[in-house]
């Protein structure tokens, strides 16, 4: 059981530039970014990635009113993924379904709103909402999915900063291998654009992107990059043991063949290329592959001046003799969707198994010399003869690193 092959059978997502994988992929291939100016409390207009999915598709108005934005994003993605995977949802045992969602943070939005609310009542806490605690418990987004979809198996979130999307997938995979569940919803979500604290924190850190054209504000690897564009979003996968997926005649999208998580144990915000390269190598080794077997590397790069350089150092170390490995970045289109980033950025690359296209990293007018990488796909998509493997990086504060390797599905 511990060696069971784990496959992806469905994907549900919402990104600033797409509410389905088809739409998201089309925009990544065509170079269509979607970043807008958002009026942020106490700060004014700031570049941000905003999703426009229809929450009412899967929630009552009352559910939306009582719940959180992260909960709505999670419900939308989970239900879309389940539809996409084609399982007879009404017939399966919901006590054998697990929900594992990565989050960078959760609760800041709701707490800030309550503080703002009681500020209008002279800080009288009698006006603090009784909804605050169920909205801010760390399991909230996963718990809202559980209630909405009547899933009685385990549900929780995985707090892993901006590595959380990958971590949600890894947790789902592990729980399937342990036999704890038979069907897993794994991925990541973020509502972070609704908290001024995230924006103000990055600004104080000198890491908040600024550009007169918001669609050009997120520019990893460009010499003029000046920080992060914060976005909301979500991406949830349905994961199954291969034998279960085959028994029900599921269409398999891809197989997760390798993963790794490690820590820098050094600095709260400055990444360590040494540990990042070890993480990538560990995920490749677990997949029983070599770096030269990787066709696409989806980078984490967030467009901070230092962070991009460090990831490029790690990439050069791992992929130094890999002429057929191509490298791209998704944040240049949608900004940094925080807890959703790892899961979303992987999803945007998965259709490459079918069409052989590596979507580009856009907004690179002048490549930073320190971000020179062999085969970095810049501004225009690259068609390859065949794509068999994708490595997806996602790194986060406090030095958490994650890499995931997925493979085109083959029977053997």
């Amino acid at each position, binding site marked *: 059981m511990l060696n069971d092959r784990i496959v992806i059978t469905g994907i549900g997502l919402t990104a600033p530039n797409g509410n389905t994988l088809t739409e998201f992929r089309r925009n990544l291939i065509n170079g269509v970014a979607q970043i807008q100016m958002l009026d942020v409390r106490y700060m004014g207009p700031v570049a941000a990635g905003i999703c426009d999915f229809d929450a009412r598709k899967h929630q*009552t*108005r009352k559910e939306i009113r009582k719940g959180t934005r992260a909960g709505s994003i999670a419900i939308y993605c989970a239900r879309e993924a389940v539809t996409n995977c084609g399982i007879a949802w009404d017939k399966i045992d919901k006590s054998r379904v697990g929900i594992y969602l990565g989050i960078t943070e959760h609760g800041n939005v709701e707490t800030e709103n309550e503080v703002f609310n009681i500020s209008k009542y002279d800080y009288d806490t009698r*006006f603090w909402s*009784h909804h605050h605690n169920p909205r801010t418990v760390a399991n909230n987004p996963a718990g809202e999915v559980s209630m909405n979809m009547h899933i009685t198996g385990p549900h929780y979130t995985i707090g892993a900063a901006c590595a959380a999307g990958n971590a949600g997938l890894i947790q789902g995979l592990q729980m399937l291998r342990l036999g704890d569940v038979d069907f897993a919803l794994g991925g990541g979500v973020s509502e972070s654009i609704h908290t001024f604290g995230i924006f103000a924190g990055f600004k104080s850190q000198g890491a908040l992107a600024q550009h007169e054209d918001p669609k050009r504000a997120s520019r990893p690897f460009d010499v003029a990059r000046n920080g992060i564009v914060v976005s909301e979003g979500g991406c949830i996968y349905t994961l199954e043991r291969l034998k279960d997926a085959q028994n029900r005649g599921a269409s398999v999208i891809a197989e997760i063949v390798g993963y790794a998580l490690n820590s820098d144990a050094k600095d709260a915000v400055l990444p360590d290329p040494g540990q990042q390269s070890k993480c990538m190598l560990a995920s490749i080794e677990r997949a029983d592959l070599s770096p030269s077997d990787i066709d696409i590397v989806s980078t984490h790069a967030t467009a901070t001046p230092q962070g991009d350089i460090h990831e490029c150092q790690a990439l050069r170390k791992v992929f130094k003799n890999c002429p057929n490995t191509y490298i791209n970045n998704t944040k240049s289109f949608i900004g940094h969707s925080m807890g959703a980033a790892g899961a979303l950025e992987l999803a945007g690359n998965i259709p490459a198994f079918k069409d052989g296209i590596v979507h580009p990293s856009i907004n690179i007018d002048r490549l930073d010399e320190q971000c020179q990488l062999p085969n970095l796909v810049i501004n225009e998509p690259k068609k390859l003869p065949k794509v068999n493997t994708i490595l997806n990086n996602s790194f986060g504060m406090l030095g958490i690193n994650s890499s995931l390797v997925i493979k085109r599905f083959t029977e053997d």
Partner: protein
Amino acid sequence: MTKEECRQLVLRIIADIAPDEDLSDVKKEVPLREQLELDSMDFLDIVMEIRKKYGIEVPEDEYSQLESLESIAEYLTPKFNSVKA
């Protein structure tokens, strides 16, 4: 304020709290929970809205007064009138 005005005021609060409910035929003598999908958090929402909008406190040991539109009107109308006075 009359009891009828009080009932209408509470119905408007419920319309915000339970926006999916059809409130066109809520029977005033029948407990709200038997007619509408309302849980304990929703009743706390009603208490909060009355506190915010009208400065009226409903103590916890008097929550049972909020059972039906009629009992609410019976309980709250004098409170509204004393606030106004």
